[in-house]
Each structure stands twice: as C-alpha cells, then as structure tokens.
C-alpha cells in the first residue's frame, strides 16, 4: 500500500465502479431500445407474450404512422390489381388501402417550426438582456434576475388558464406565433440566467480595447462579445430547443389543429382495437432519436451546461 495515492482510485475500485455504472446504464437503455425495436414490429409481434426480442422486422409501424387507411372488401381489393408500391403491399395484407397521408408529418413540422422559432427568439432576446445585466449597472438588477427566474416556479397549468383566455381574445389560440411567444417566455428566464454566466466570463478588456479603437458599444457587442460567447450561446440554444421540443402541457391545452406539436399527437395514434403500438413507437422513435443523437454528439457542452446552470446560484 505504500504506492497508494489518495487522489487516484485503485484499479480494483475502478473496475467495480465501471461494472456497476455500466450495469445501470444498460438497464436505463432498455425502455429506449424497446421503443426503437417496437417500431419495427408487426402489431402481432408487438403484443406477443413472452415479449419478442427476435422478430421479422417490418415497416408496417412507419407506414401506419404516415398514412390513414380504409378497409375494403377482398373483391374490391382484387379489382384494384397488384399493389404499385411496397407500402401499398404492406397495407393490403390487412384488406386495407391507403386513403391519404396522416397528420403526423404536419405535427412534426409544427414541432420544428415552433421549436426553432422560439429558440431563436429566446436566444436573441436572452443574449441582449444577459449582456446588459452582465455589463451595465441596472437598478434592482438582482431583484429583476430573481423575478425572471421565479417565473419558472409556476405550474404550467396555472399559467395556462389566463393564457388561454388572453389568446382567445387576441386570436393567438392554436397559432404558431402564439406558441412561439409562449415557449419564448418560458425559456427566456433560463436563457438569460445561463448566458449571463457565459458573458460574465469574457474579460471586459476586450470590449474596452474595441471601444478605444473607435467601435460603438453596439459594434463592440456583436463583433467582440458575440463571437467569444458563441459556445455558450450554442449550448443555451440546445436547452431551449429541447424544452420547446418536449413540451406537452401548454401544447395539449392551447393547440388542437393548426399548431399542434408532436407530443400531444403521438399518444393518440389509434389502430384497430386500441393504440397502434408499432405506429406509436415509430412516431416516438422519429421524435426522440434526434434528441438522443444530439445528446451523445454534443455531450461535452450539454453536461457542462446542466451543472453550470444549476450550480451557479
């Protein structure tokens, strides 16, 4: 034990730790892997007992996710002639024909528009406010910052009641603009909080040098400070995007048709006799996979951002 170092754990303890952590990680992954697998199962395989790990993969779930179908008699089906496409062929096994596209594409697009729209707006407004809080003396700055943060303590349903009434008056119910503004209002408190931290870390001397060189304050802001804060801005943007992407409570209460996002829609995909689980799983896969890939690729910024945001106060 003479070579024992306190700061470097022993090899044995490292191995034990690795085994336990990896075991937990694998268990954690099971539900996620199961979502992805179920998306490629036939309805019969999805509900078989015992649950099937090995099965014939099919794209039925994905076809059902993107289409609406109607049942036809076998005679009518024969009269139609051979199926023209692979997805037609899948549907016809069940005496059905494709009636048209489903709403999933639209809902997914809404998620993208509202997610990116509100992220852009939160970052734009948040960066300006964060810069001002970081660099200028603002009266009652601490109170304002606390007020901005405390708005996150309200349960979404509590905010939803007056928003619902207000939006009905203003004609913003079930519109993209209404949802973008709402998500921006929710996100901006976190955005200002995180961004102020990032901007605080940039030395003031850079801007002062720029001011002496003849830049205006505004030029110094976007030519000197913004590039320096780019990574901070990017990781804040990811958090805003993930929130808007995942949000459910406001979406389910304030949207119904034109501006509905994917989270309230996916759980309502109905098949024959109840939820169509392969289609639900296919929708969930398409919706969750981008976030999973994002998380793994950008892990360094993300993980730092989570702890940074939480620990800073």
């Amino acid at each position: 034990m003479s070579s024992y170092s306190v700061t470097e754990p022993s090899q044995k303890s490292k191995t034990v730790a690795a085994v336990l952590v990896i075991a937990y990680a694998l268990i954690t992954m099971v539900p996620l892997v199961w979502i992805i697998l179920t998306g490629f199962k036939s309805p019969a395989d999805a509900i078989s007992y015992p649950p099937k790990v090995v099965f014939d993969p099919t794209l039925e779930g994905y076809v059902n996710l993107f289409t609406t179908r109607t049942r036809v008699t076998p005679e009518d089906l024969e009269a139609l002639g051979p199926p023209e496409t692979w997805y037609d062929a899948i549907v016809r096994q069940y005496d059905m024909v494709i009636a048209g596209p489903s709403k999933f594409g639209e809902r997914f697009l809404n998620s993208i528009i509202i997610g990116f729209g509100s992220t852009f707006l939160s970052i734009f407004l948040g960066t300006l406010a964060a810069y001002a809080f970081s660099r200028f003396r603002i009266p009652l700055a601490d109170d304002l910052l606390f007020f901005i943060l405390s708005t996150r303590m309200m349960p979404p349903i509590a905010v939803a009641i007056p928003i619902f009434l207000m939006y009905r008056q203003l004609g913003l119910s079930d519109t993209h603009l209404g949802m973008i503004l709402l998500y921006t209002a929710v996100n901006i408190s976190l955005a200002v909080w995180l961004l102020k931290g990032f901007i605080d870390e940039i030395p003031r001397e850079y801007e002062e040098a720029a001011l002496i060189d003849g830049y205006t304050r505004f030029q110094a802001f976007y030519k000197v400070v913004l590039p320096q804060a780019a990574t901070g801005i990017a990781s804040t943007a990811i958090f805003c995007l993930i929130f808007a992407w995942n949000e459910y409570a406001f979406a389910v209460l304030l949207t119904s048709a034109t501006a509905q996002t994917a989270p309230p829609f996916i759980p309502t995909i109905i098949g024959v006799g109840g939820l169509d689980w392969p289609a639900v799983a296919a929708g969930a896969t398409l919706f969750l996979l981008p976030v999973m890939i994002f998380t793994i690729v950008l892990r360094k910024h993300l993980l730092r951002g989570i702890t940074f945001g939480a620990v800073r106060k």
Partner: protein
Amino acid sequence: MSDSIADKAARATPPRVARKVRGLSDRAIAWIFVAPTIFLLLAINIFPLIWTIRLSFTDFRANRQGREVEWVGLRNYERILTDSDVWLSMQATAHFLIWTIALQVILGFALAWLINRKFKGNDLWTTIIVLPMMLSPAVVGNFWSFLYQPQIGLFNYVIAFLTGQNASSFDMLGSVDLAPWSIVIVDTWMWTPFVMLICLAGLRSIPDYIYEAAEIDRASQWRQFFTITIPMVLPFLMLAVLFRGIENFKMFDLVVQLTGGGPGNVTTLTSIDLKREAFEKWRTGYASAYAIILFVTVFGLASIYVKALNKVKER
C-alpha cells in the same frame, strides 16, 4: 475601475470621434437590451398571474362567455381548503415528491460517486445514463404505459421472470396499491441522472489536497467519506433536491400519459386535479384560486428551503 480606461480614452479623443465612440449612451443600450425581455415576461407571465388572482375571487366560467360574473370574495379559497379531494391530491403529490426525491438522491449520489472513480470510458456511460432526462416526458410516459401492460408489457415480464410470479397477476397502472409506485419508478428512471450530474459537479469541486491532508492524519476511508465527501457535496445535493422538488410539484405530462390520474384518484397530482377543474369542469374562478394556492405553496416552500441551503453553504 474598469471604466476609467475607457473614460480616459474618451477624454483624450476629439469631440467628433468621441460621439462616434459612445454612439448610444450605455444607459440607453442597457434599457434597449433589457426591455423586450421584461416586456415579454410582463405580458406572458406577470399579466396572466394578476389576471388569475382577479379571477380567483369570481365565479367566472370560461366556457360560458357573456354570463354575468359575480364576485365571491374568498369563497373559492375556502372551498378548496376544505375540499377533501384537494387534500387527497396533495397527499398523492407528497407521496410522489418524497419517494422520487429519496430514490433519486440515493441512486444519483451513488452513481456520481462511482463515476468519480474515473474509470475508462466513464464520460460515454455518463451520457447514456443522461439520455432519459433529455426526452419528452409525454412521449416517454405514453410508451411506459405499454411496458406496464399486465399481459404483454416488458416490465411485467421482467418482474415476473425475476420473482417467479405470473406476469398478468399484477397491474402496475390499474391497481390502487401499485399505481402510485408506477409513476415513482418512471420519474426516477428519467431524473436520477440530473441529481447524478449535480453531485458529480460537487464531487469534482473537492480539491485533492483535502484528501491528502486527511490521509496524512491517517483518517480512515469511512471517516474521510463522512467528514469530507458528504459535507462538501451537501450544498450541491440540496440544490438538486430544490430543482427536482419544484419540477415534481408541477408534474403533469409524464403522469397524465401514464395513469391519467387513475385508478380512481390515487395518482391525481395537484396539477392534474387543477387541469380537470380548469379545462374539463370549466370552473375557471375556482381553478384560478387553486392555481394561486399552489403557486404560493411552491414559492413559500422554496424560499424556506433556499434559506436553509444558504446556511449550509456558509458553514
């Protein structure tokens, strides 16, 4: 102090250049930069809050416009605080809060402590553990209701396989005894990584020399753990508990998709109860009072907690 460099430079430059240097005054820029954010928050957070307070003293119903609205004073508040259903949903929320926080603190700290052994590839496995908390609670909760199916669900199969019971002999979502635990399990699966990350930040903030000094003093591993590790991580851990507490007090999406508040009312958390009052029974005035009570409760509890947290930090 830092202003002085710029000030000196400004005084040394001729007036025409100086005007260009200054552009808009700093004060003007500060307000232009902050105003849109404040305006948005006033319009979409504060104005609605004031409106809610106003509505909470009325018998307004949002589905009947044009009906005469009456002031009822504090009657809504009175009714809520004496309503046994409200207290039941408070109890359901308390059960959910206490158990999710307890489990997440234990698991999260243990994981962080293990990851801090710095074995090879720990950052990749950390990322994999973090995945659930990045995902949409509604979509994930909906899929968990499939895993919990008594006949066909994977969860029931695994539990049956491990315990030798029949997989269809227990119904996680349909049984009054098990449903409150079903939501605790999913929330723990989703949010343990958050507590873990905060604890990890805490563990990494402890400087090595403290342990080295303890080693020189021949403090045992246990003693080091209880006198150095735990006290140093405690402020971080308490912060994680604060965030999880606020979030889970507001919990809606995950539980709505899992149990919808059932069976009966056993998983009707306050947010779900509130949603029913406001958007199903359309008792807008009553629901507004309910919302105010919840907000005051969170805010009050959080304020007391932050005071305690600051005391721990000072030590």
